């Protein structure tokens, strides 16, 4: 378009100045509030987080209009917030309404945005002898002002976790305690939202066993660590000459058992400590040391320094491998009640996976242990290969490189 041919400057009458730039840059998300509910032995507790930007539309928070909301301002608004909450977040057990009790205000954040966080308990006006098994929830906060608002529910009971999205056309949901698992089908979720089917506890446990097996099998570093320890374990070397003399099956088996047990014991300890948040290590450090452990063990096969201390090494490094296993469990974001069974299940899975590897390795290695192939190809070349791979991991993890992309 040749702009020099445009008519002379004319007065632009703009009726709607706000429409000037026809572009938006969306940086915030649409409105959502997070509702967490947990049932434990018939006691129902909850936590409701709502962004202050949303809450401000319902209840003016910024008393002095200076643009800043202080903790004092939020606290002063709490009585109004509380009454809104009681109106728009309602619970019922059968035909009996449940009351929000022990409301406690704090602050939290939703995806980095400041939020008000209210914890509560559900109580019945006429406590029944049996604990509450079923609760129906009604949620319609903000829907009249913002139909795009959603209430994102996460419900945990025993080992089951259920999610739901409250929307203007899906404001009701029935929750059941997991001890009453006969009919767990929740209300149909709107717009095909993800709604995880609740998993009964034995199935959940089996799932974690599978996770554990899967983890040790896909975790090449754990397998190689174990193999690097086991490869020389079937050979006995005379300390003075370094020449190898075959041992009987019993002696070999005892050494293998000692190594596997030490490794198991060590990683179980740290798995428990890390999963319960008693000890935390940065994951990069853990991954780096795991890579280093594989390298050290492989190196020790080539230049034996700690020949008779393989079980000790298995224990020492096993401690750090446990932290690696724990990161998997943390990724699963389990509810507190599910922690114990998942811990047991996951560890059991890791052990089963490990035993399967040993069960395949031991007979073959035992049969071949006197051959030149085993001593030179498997032990020397195998350890070299493991060492090379471990060094690559070490570089990758320590320096945060991605070597697979080159």
């Amino acid at each position, binding site marked *: 378009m040749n702009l020099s041919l445009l008519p002379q400057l004319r007065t632009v009458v703009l009726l709607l100045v706000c429409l000037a730039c026809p572009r*938006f840059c969306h*940086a915030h998300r649409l409105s959502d509030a*997070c509702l967490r509910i947990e049932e434990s032995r018939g006691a129902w507790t909850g936590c409701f987080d709502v962004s202050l930007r949303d809450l401000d539309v319902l209840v003016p928070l910024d008393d002095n209009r200076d643009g800043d909301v202080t903790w004092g301002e939020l606290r002063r608004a709490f009585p109004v917030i509380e009454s809104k909450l009681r109106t728009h977040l309602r619970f019922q057990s059968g035909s009996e309404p449940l009351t929000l009790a022990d409301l406690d205000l704090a602050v939290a954040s939703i995806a980095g945005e400041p939020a008000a966080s209210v914890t509560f308990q559900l109580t019945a006006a006429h406590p029944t002898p049996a604990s509450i098994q079923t609760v129906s929830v009604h949620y319609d906060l903000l829907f009249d002002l913002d139909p795009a608002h959603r209430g994102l529910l996460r419900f945990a009971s025993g080992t089951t976790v259920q999610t739901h999205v409250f929307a203007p056309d899906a404001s009701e949901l029935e929750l059941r305690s997991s001890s009453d698992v006969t009919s767990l089908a929740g209300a149909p979720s709107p717009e095909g939202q993800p709604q995880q089917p609740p998993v009964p506890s034995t199935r959940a446990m089996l799932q974690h066993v599978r996770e554990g097996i899967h983890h040790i099998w896909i975790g090449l570093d754990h397998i190689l660590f174990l193999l690097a320890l086991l490869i020389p374990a079937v050979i006995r070397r005379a300390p003075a000459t370094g020449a190898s003399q075959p041992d009987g099956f019993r002696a070999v088996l005892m050494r293998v058992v000692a190594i596997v047990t030490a490794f198991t014991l060590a990683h179980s300890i740290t798995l428990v400590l890390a999963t319960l948040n008693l000890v935390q290590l940065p994951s990069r450090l853990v991954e780096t040391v795991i890579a280093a452990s594989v390298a050290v063990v492989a190196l020790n096969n080539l230049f034996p320094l700690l020949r008779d201390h393989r079980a000790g090494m298995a224990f020492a490094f096993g401690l750090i491998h446990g932290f690696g296993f724990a990161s998997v469990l943390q990724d699963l974001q389990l509810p507190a009640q599910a922690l114990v069974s998942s811990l047991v299940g996951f560890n059991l899975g890791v052990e089963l996976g490990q035993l399967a590897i040993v069960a395949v390795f031991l007979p073959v290695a035992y049969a071949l242990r006197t051959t030149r192939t085993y001593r030179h190809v498997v032990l020397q070349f195998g350890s070299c290969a493991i060492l090379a791979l471990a060094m690559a991991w070490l570089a990758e993890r320590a320096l945060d490189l991605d070597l697979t992309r080159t």
Partner: protein
Amino acid sequence: MKPLLATAFMLASFLSPAPAVTSPHRHLPASEATVIATLPRRTDFPRSSQSSAESAALPSQSDLATVREWIAQARRDADPRWLTRALARLDALPTATLAQTDALLLRAETLQGLHQFQPALTQLDTLLRQDPRHPGAWRLKAALHQLLGDYDTARAAILNLLRWGHELDAAIAAAALTGLTAGSVDTATTLTSVIRRHPQAPAEIRAWGWSTAGEILALHGDPAAAESCFRESLRGQPDSPYTTGALADLLLEQNRPSEVIELLRDATSEGLRLRLAEALSQSHSSSPELRNLVQQIQEGFELSHWRGDALHLREQARFTLRLRHQASEALTLARANWEIQKEPADLLLLLETAQAAGDSAALRAAEIWARTHQPATWNHFQSRSARAVATRPESATLPTPIAAR
């Protein structure tokens, strides 16, 4: 089972924390005076406006004024919640009010902001049948068709702006259409001279013009001139997240992370915090701030996915590629975004993710589209890739675009 597991079981049952029902970041502020949030400046929510005598007399006009203010607020604050609230407010109006041109335009504007482009166009077409001269409607129509990649219809809309005498609007829209698809640096130069000839035009229009000129210059490889245009635009409209984001992108492309960190230090919105995270990552910072930021942005995308909205596919694709380094997932997101919008930023992201994922078929398809419809974007992508190859030898093994073979 081993004794240890039994011990673990016991240990766990003793040490298991109280029900973890609360949110992970829940805490009590230090004192009453602790500032826990800064809310955007805005006119009061209609709780009070409804009580005024004027609004009782002319309820629909007052509603429209409120909606207009909310749309402006959505833009200033990059917060789409104001749009969904505005839409609810409009839906509650009587049919007769909704048929007014003002209401139709506001509705179109709101729908556009929520990425409902076709329904927005329907509103505009109804409006233009009533008032074929409406500048706001033609301006938005031009922008929407350009966004959808329908350049002929966009051009026709711009000609209508010109026909009814809105020179500056037409010049900006035309420059955006020409300069962001093909064109050259001259397109921006012509535009800046037209803006200078309209010193009395509203600040918002001029700011839109300057930022458009900046985008054209950035795309055509004149980053220094682009930067001064963006800064000029921000002088007229200091709180525009759109222009701030564009300037941050320009600085990031020039590997100037510390200036981006300075620019976005106090940004609250996710789109800008994404760029802040990129800057922190570019400056090789492995600070807790970066980790925290990445975690928060990730949480936001997870919540959006959970509730099922696709308003941030572009940002999510970018985040997945540049901060999580998951190229094939990023490509899937960039493709989904491409189905919705086709601006240079969307095309660049599609090309970038296809290249990073090593998906030569996807790269070729994007390249063919780019060379046909947005050669300027294609050229920009090529020169950027060439720079990347020069500074980072390992990327030489990435699939080569057709043109380079």
